[in-house]
């Protein structure tokens, strides 16, 4: 993986791995820490979690293809293998935030004598809070790297003992000439 841009791909791989590890811990915690929630309402809010799992595997599979096929596919085809990663990332985020939205606007079930009946998982997943909350939650992670990326450049260029290489050199020459 000596091709141009490979370090960015490796960074993506590292971040995905850490996200997978920390996310796995969280999914176990749902059952271990919150038996009162998952025991009673698991069948109501389980659907978005299951769908999120499918998106996660899609993302993992295509990330594998994307990283390992770096030098083995024509550049345009290689670029296409990144598209499912993006789609799965956004759709997975939608699923988990839909589960969270359900906690704000619980729908899709009836409570009869303290027991959950008439479960409608789709009505639970697409509760009234789902659209405002997912939109509000999915746009900032697309946007904070927009801030995070330029944020790294002045740091690398002007600060903390960094070696200025071509990318930050570009930033320095095109903007401020700090020295």
């Amino acid at each position, binding site marked *: 993986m000596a091709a141009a841009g490979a370090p960015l791909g490796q960074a993506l791989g590292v971040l995905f791995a850490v996200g997978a590890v920390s996310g796995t811990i969280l999914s176990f915690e749902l059952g271990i820490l919150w038996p009162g929630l998952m025991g009673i309402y698991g069948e109501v809010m389980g659907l978005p979690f299951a769908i999120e799992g499918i998106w996660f595997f899609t993302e993992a599979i295509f990330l594998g293809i994307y990283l390992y096929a770096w030098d083995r596919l024509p550049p345009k085809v290689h670029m296409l293998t990144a598209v499912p990663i993006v789609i799965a990332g956004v759709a997975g985020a939608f699923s988990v935030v839909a589960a969270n939205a359900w*906690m704000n606007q619980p729908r899709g079930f009836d409570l009869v004598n303290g027991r959950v009946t008439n479960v409608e998982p789709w009505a639970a997943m697409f509760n009234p809070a789902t659209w*405002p909350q997912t939109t509000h939650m999915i746009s*900032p992670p697309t946007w904070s790297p927009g801030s995070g990326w330029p944020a790294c450049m002045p740091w690398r260029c002007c600060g903390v*003992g960094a*070696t200025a290489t071509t990318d930050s050199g*570009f930033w320095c020459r095109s903007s401020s000439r700090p020295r």
Partner: protein
Amino acid sequence: MPFVFAAALTPVQIGVGDWAAHFVADNQPVKLATMEGVFETERGAPLHLGGIEVDGQMRYAIEIPFGLSLLAHWDPNAEIMGLNEVRPDRRPPVNVVHLSFQTMVAMGTALLGLGAWFALAWLRRRDLPRSRWFLGFSALSGVAAVVALEAGWITTEVGRQPWIVYGYLRTADAVSAAPGLQLGLYALIVVYTVLTAATVYVLRLLAKAPLPVAPQETEPVEPRVIS
């Protein structure tokens, strides 16, 4: 390019935030009252900027008359429900939620300002702003974006308390009754700290590797070490 992205998306994000806030105003009035520190139900409620709750009252806040009613319902005389209508054991903690919400809005507004600064310079000179302050604020904007994200989550999660399933199940009734849960928390803090440190270390290693020179670069830039 990333700046164009950030500058273009921040106004969108504030619009989406406005939509989400209207939804909360209509469907979770207790959360709205907590976010804004409203205790007495009133028409033409003012918007509180800053301030902390002391003994059931907002103190030291800058008040913008009619601001809250206007923002929440597009009507300066709209009625805003106050927390005093809610049983004390069903109120979320005001200070945590109010301050997180204000932090999120402040960060969002600051990022909007930075984006506008960039857009202005770009429209006038087709270049980045020349001020060193712009670079300084840009370096902070990445942190600010993450802080805004976390503050937003604290707002919505703590603002739903004491409910885990709003109106149906209390958080206290959902949590495991097993003893020693805090041990798990300590272990998790250690694990996540190690994970974070390892991630930062590996990413820094990757960042130190010089990128191959892009084909369009004509004059190679001398790598230099800045101490």
